[in-house]
C-alpha cells in the first residue's frame, strides 16, 4: 500500500483579525509550507473612481477620506494638490505649513497603527497595539480640534485648508511633539531588541531592492529594501524642501527592516513637525477659487509620499464641474503585487507577519 499526500487549500479571511480588513488569501500548503498563494480582492470595492466622475470636484474631497482611512489627511492633500495643478491655483504659505503639519501627524498616526498591528500579528497580542493607540489618540484629538472629526477629516480645500487652527491647537501640539520621542524610545526599549521579535522577523520575507523597484513597490516597503527613495526628498512637493530630515532605509528588506524604517520615519516626522511649528507664518489659509469651479480641460498626475507609499491622483478634466476621469494610484494596492513571492516557502504564521509588514489599508486597496 502506498501513502498518498495532496496539497491542502486554506481560506484566510475575508473576516479574520490578521487580514487588516476584508482581505482574503487563498493559501495552498504542502504540509506546513506554503506552495501557492492567491490574494482575493474586492470585498470593500465601492467604486470610488466611478463615483468620482459623478460628483463635483469638491464633493469628491470627502470620498478621498475613505480611501486609506488611516491616513485621510494625506489623501486630502494629494487630491487637493492634483486639482490645484489642474486648475493652476496657488496655495498661501500658512496653508502649506498647516498641510505639512497635518500630513506628518498623519504619518505618525498611520505608522503607529501599522507597527502596532504588526506586533499583534506577531503574537504580542494587543499590548503594543494599545500602547501605540495611546499616542494615536492624542493625534486624533489634535485633528478633532482643527476640523471636528477624528477619522474622516475633509480638512483640505483647493487653495488651502478649510479653516485656520484654533488657539489651543499649538500648545497641545507642542506638548505632544515634546513627548513623542520619549514614547518612541519606550516602544524601542520594549520591542526593538526583544528576542521573540528578532526571531520572528529577522530574515523573514526578504524583498530584494531590484525586485521591489521592478514591482512598483513604494513607501516604507521600498525603503526597507534599502532603496533611498522618498518623494518628499526626490520630488520636494509643497514646502518639503525647507525642512531638514533624513530618509531611513533598511539593509536586507526583511520584516524587521520594514518595521524599523517605520519607527525611524516617526522620528523624522517629529522633526519635520517641530520645524514647521517654528516656521509657521501668519496669514491667509485659503485662496478664493472661482465658483462654479470648473478647471480648464487638461490632465494632471500628482503623487505624494503618503504613509503607505506613493499616493497619486490622475485627473482628466473636460472643462465641466466634474472630473472626466478620477484615477487613484493606491500604494497599498500596488505594494501587494509582491506578496505572493514573499510568502512562498514560508509557513502560515510567517505569511501573516509578512502581510502585516506591508501595512495595507483595504479602503485603499479595493477603493
Amino acid at each position, binding site marked *: 500500500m502506498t501513502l498518498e499526500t495532496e496539497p491542502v487549500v486554506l481560506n484566510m479571511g475575508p473576516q479574520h483579525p490578521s487580514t487588516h480588513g476584508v482581505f482574503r488569501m487563498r493559501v495552498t500548503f504542502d504540509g506546513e509550507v506554503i506552495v501557492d498563494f492567491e490574494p482575493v480582492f474586492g470585498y470593500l*470595492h465601492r467604486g470610488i*473612481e*466611478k463615483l468620482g466622475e459623478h460628483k463635483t470636484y469638491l464633493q469628491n474631497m470627502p470620498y478621498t477620506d475613505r480611501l486609506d482611512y488611516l491616513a485621510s489627511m494625506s489623501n486630502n492633500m494629494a487630491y487637493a494638490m492634483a486639482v490645484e495643478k489642474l486648475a493652476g491655483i496657488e496655495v498661501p504659505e500658512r496653508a502649506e505649513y498647516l498641510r505639512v503639519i497635518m500630513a506628518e501627524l498623519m504619518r505618525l498616526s498611520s505608522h503607529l497603527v501599522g507597527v502596532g498591528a504588526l506586533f499583534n500579528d506577531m503574537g504580542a497580542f494587543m499590548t503594543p497595539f494599545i500602547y501605540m493607540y495611546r499616542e494615536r489618540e492624542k493625534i486624533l484629538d489634535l485633528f478633532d480640534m482643527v476640523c471636528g472629526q477624528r477619522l474622516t477629516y475633509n480638512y483640505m480645500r483647493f487653495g488651502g485648508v478649510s479653516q485656520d487652527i484654533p488657539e489651543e491647537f499649538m500648545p497641545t501640539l507642542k506638548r505632544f511633539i515634546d513627548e513623542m520621542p520619549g514614547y518612541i524610545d519606550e516602544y524601542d526599549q520594549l520591542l526593538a531588541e526583544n528576542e521573540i521579535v528578532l526571531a520572528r522577523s529577522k530574515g523573514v520575507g526578504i524583498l530584494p531592492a531590484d*525586485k521591489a523597484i521592478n514591482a512598483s513597490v513604494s513607501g516604507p516597503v521600498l525603503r526597507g529594501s534599502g532603496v533611498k527613495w522618498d518623494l518628499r526628498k526626490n520630488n520636494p512637493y509643497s514646502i518639503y524642501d525647507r525642512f531638514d530630515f533624513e530618509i531611513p532605509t533598511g539593509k536586507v528588506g526583511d520584516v524587521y527592516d520594514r518595521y524599523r524604517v517605520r519607527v525611524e520615519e516617526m522620528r523624522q516626522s517629529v522633526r519635520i513637525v517641530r520645524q514647521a511649528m517654528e516656521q509657521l507664518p501668519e496669514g491667509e489659509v485659503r485662496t478664493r477659487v472661482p465658483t462654479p469651479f470648473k478647471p480648464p480641460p487638461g490632465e494632471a*498626475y500628482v503623487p505624494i509620499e503618503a504613509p503607505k507609499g506613493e499616493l497619486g491622483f490622475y485627473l482628466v478634466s473636460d472643462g465641466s464641474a466634474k472630473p472626466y*476621469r478620477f484615477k487613484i494610484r493606491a500604494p497599498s494596492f*500596488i505594494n501587494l*503585487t509582491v506578496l505572493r513571492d514573499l510568502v512562498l516557502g514560508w509557513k502560515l504564521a510567517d505569511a501573516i507577519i509578512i502581510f502585516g509588514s506591508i501595512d495595507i489599508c483595504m479602503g485603499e486597496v479595493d477603493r
Partner: protein
Amino acid sequence: MIKTLAGAEVARQIGEQLPDTVTGSDETTVFVRSEAILDVARFLKESLDFDYLVSITAVDFLDHFDVIYHLRSMKNNYSVVLRTKCADRQSPSVPSVVSLWQGADLQEREVYDLMGISFEGHPNMKRIVLWEGYKGHPLRKDFILDVPGGGKAT
C-alpha cells in the same frame, strides 16, 4: 525634483530605434501605436533606464480608449508618459508589459476589470475587484448602473 523629459525628445530617440511606432508627442507625453507598446516599453526600460512603472490607467473617450503609462527612472530621476489609443470597442486589447515590470500585474488586471481592455500576454488576465460573471465594465462611459446582480454595458 523629478525632471519631466520632453515628449518630443523621447519620441525622437524611440523613432531612431523603432521606426513607425510613434504617432505623436507633446511636452510630457509620447503617443505610440498600441501594437508597439511592448517594444517601446522595452526600449525605454533597457536603453533609457525607466526602471519604475508608476501607474497604468485607461480613459474612455467613447470613440476610443487611451491607455496611459506613467514611467519613471529612479536611477536618473526623470519621468515620461506613454500613451496609446485603442479604437476597438468590442474587444479592445493591448500587449501586456508585465514581462518587463512586475508592477503591471495587478494594475493591468484592474484596468481589464473596470475598463474592459485586455492585456495580451498577461499570465492571469481575470477580474480583480469585481466577481467572475459580472456583466460589463463600470468605468466605461456607457455603463448603466442599475441592473441587479451587476451592471449592463450597452
